[in-house]
């Protein structure tokens, strides 16, 4: 306990209450607007479900897929959403390990994105199955036939990796919520009280519980980072493991991971901006958060450019006919508009916004993030589709145009994300209350940071509502 903290706690007990009140307000009170939004989003999601049932009923032919473009929107969405899922866990884990204290209001936001994006993303391989009701054949389970899934298939790696990542992310999200649920248990009434009583698992807040929780979180943070890296690497290997022009590439692993973090941060910024606006959390999600994340985004944007150059330059010089066919089709051929839109969205537009400090405002970063989300979706599309359209034998080249089914399902997932998020916000305080309250004990190294001489440069500065405001 430092003097400063003590002063804060002693000087403004009413602020502590206010913080809890502020953060619990979205959970305990819901305006009609929120219901309206949920209904709107729900309509999209329902449309997606209708489309999926329709597709399962009639066959994959209702999509725009064909030979040779056997993968299209669905796998694009799969890669995109799995990429988005790298927002949270990875960011918050790194920041947690690095003990960057400004992360505290951001972590849960980000982790929730991870879990929901992962659930949405993982549903796409099933949506895209020719016989989706048999998806469980991917799972190794004993059967009288004595047959097993093929552990050599990257799809099974996907299954293992996503299962692991989802388990880890859920734990990473849910464990720190337990104390907050305990708080809610004490505040809520009626059925919610019963619900939170169950969810809080009987949490009290003894030193033992706090210690174990922190230890668990520290271990999880160590474990989740390599898992997250492996997840998107394995997603990239879905492509890189097969001899398809421009897919069969060693750069795909890091390329996908970088892209995933890139799009993940962008999604996080958008989510934060929306939460800030909708839930009136202006005092908790401050410009400095957007500034920090904006800097990270800038780094990732540069990394993305680095990878796309690395990928395309080697193909250009390699000059293997099938690969060059894909390269030219994307850059000069039928995919030209999409390709250059992608470059604009991922680099040409966000780079100046993020690089110039004056533009790196909340609005600025949100604009940059929006273009990046679009750009990264296009990037996934341009990885999946052109390579399939232009495979080795030119006689069998093809065309792909999505049908209403794929578009509806895609829209549905883009609606499902905010819908799930809204529901989540209605059950869980989106900013970790106990963490924000600053009770976390500084590590010895971090303690120095908090010495009086460091106060001015403390990134934590200004992230709490100050007493007078």
């Amino acid at each position: 306990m430092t003097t400063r903290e003590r002063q804060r706690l002693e000087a403004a007990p009413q602020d502590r209450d206010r913080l809890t009140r502020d953060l619990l307000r979205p959970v305990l009170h819901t305006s009609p607007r929120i219901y309206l939004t949920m209904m709107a989003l729900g309509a999209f999601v329902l449309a997606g479900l209708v489309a999926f049932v329709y597709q399962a009923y009639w066959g994959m032919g209702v999509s725009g897929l064909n030979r040779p473009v056997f993968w299209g929107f669905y796998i694009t969405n799969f890669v995109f959403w799995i990429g988005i899922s790298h927002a949270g866990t990875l960011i918050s884990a790194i920041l947690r390990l690095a003990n960057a204290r400004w992360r505290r209001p951001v972590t849960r936001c980000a982790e929730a994105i991870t879990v929901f994006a992962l659930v949405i993303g993982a549903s796409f391989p099933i949506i895209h199955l020719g016989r989706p009701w048999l998806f469980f054949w991917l799972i190794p389970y004993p059967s009288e036939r004595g047959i097993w899934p093929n552990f050599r298939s990257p799809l099974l790696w996907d299954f293992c990796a996503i299962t692991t990542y989802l388990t880890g992310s859920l734990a990473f999200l849910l464990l720190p919520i337990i104390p907050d649920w305990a708080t809610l248990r004490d505040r809520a009434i009626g059925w919610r009280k019963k619900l939170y009583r169950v969810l809080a698992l009987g949490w009290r807040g003894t030193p033992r519980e706090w210690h174990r929780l922190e230890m668990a979180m520290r271990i999880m943070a160590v474990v989740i980072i390599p898992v997250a890296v492996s997840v998107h690497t394995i997603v990239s290997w879905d492509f890189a493991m097969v001899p398809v022009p421009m897919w069969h590439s060693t750069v795909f692993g890091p390329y996908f991971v970088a892209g995933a973090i890139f799009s993940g941060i962008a999604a996080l910024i958008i989510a934060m901006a929306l939460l800030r606006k909708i839930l009136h959390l202006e005092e908790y999600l401050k410009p400095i958060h957007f500034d920090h994340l904006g800097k990270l985004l800038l780094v990732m944007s540069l990394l993305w450019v680095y990878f796309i150059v690395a990928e395309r330059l080697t193909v250009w010089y390699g000059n293997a006919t099938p690969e060059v066919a894909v390269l030219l089709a994307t850059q000069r051929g039928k995919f030209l508009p999409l390709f250059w839109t992608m470059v604009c969205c991922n680099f040409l537009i966000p780079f100046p916004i993020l690089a110039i400090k004056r533009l790196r405002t909340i609005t600025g970063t949100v604009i940059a993030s929006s273009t990046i989300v679009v750009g990264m979706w296009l990037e996934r599309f341009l990885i999946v589709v052109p390579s399939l359209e232009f495979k080795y034998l030119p006689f069998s080249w093809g065309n792909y145009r999505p049908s209403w089914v794929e578009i509806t399902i895609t829209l549905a997932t883009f609606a499902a994300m905010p819908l799930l998020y809204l529901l989540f916000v209605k059950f869980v305080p989106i900013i970790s209350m106990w963490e924000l309250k600053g009770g976390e004990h500084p590590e010895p190294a971090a303690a120095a940071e908090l010495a009086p001489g460091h106060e001015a440069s403390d990134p934590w500065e200004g992230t709490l509502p100050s007493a007078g405001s």
Partner: protein
Amino acid sequence: MIFLAALLVAGLGVLGMALVKADTRGAPGSVAGESTPAAASGLSSGVFTPAHRTLLEAMEDYFDYFPTPVQPIAFNHKIHIAKGMKCLSCHAGAALGPQAGIPSVTFCMACHQVIATNNPEIQKLASYAAEGREVPWQPVNWFYPAAHVRFWHAPHIRAGVDCTTCHGNVSQQTVAVRQSDLNMHFCLSCHREKEVSVDCATCHD
């Protein structure tokens, strides 16, 4: 608020479109010749698991359930075998080809013109023959089409596999019933024991 209303309208619009699109049957299932819906052929319909005729059948298949057939005539295997007939006397195809086959009503009538003509079951048989109709025997052992099983009797008979191995001791049965779960485990365990092909493509294709 306007934005929200617009979002709601858009969402409902997409939902409506999906419902309307999903309701226009026929178009996607239509295959050869644009005017012919899939349902026109006896082989297909737009069912959930199209390999099965109905969803019920799909579920029965999934849970290894084979309904016990009701035979039009209570054919008594026991009596026939007791009289010295062999399986192949009637199911001659088993030794020659893929299917064992069920003899035609004319085959039955070759004997039953004179034998046991008072038996009400035999009278049923005679009336089928008189009408020029085949007895609508119901299959007892079969594979669902979704299993994509290619089973040939003849190689098994040649290899000396006894009929009872799969069909049970029919000599003690009256109306034949399914004796074993003729599932992949059943086939494989025997194939493994006899060290014959366990290659998938031998039976599935």
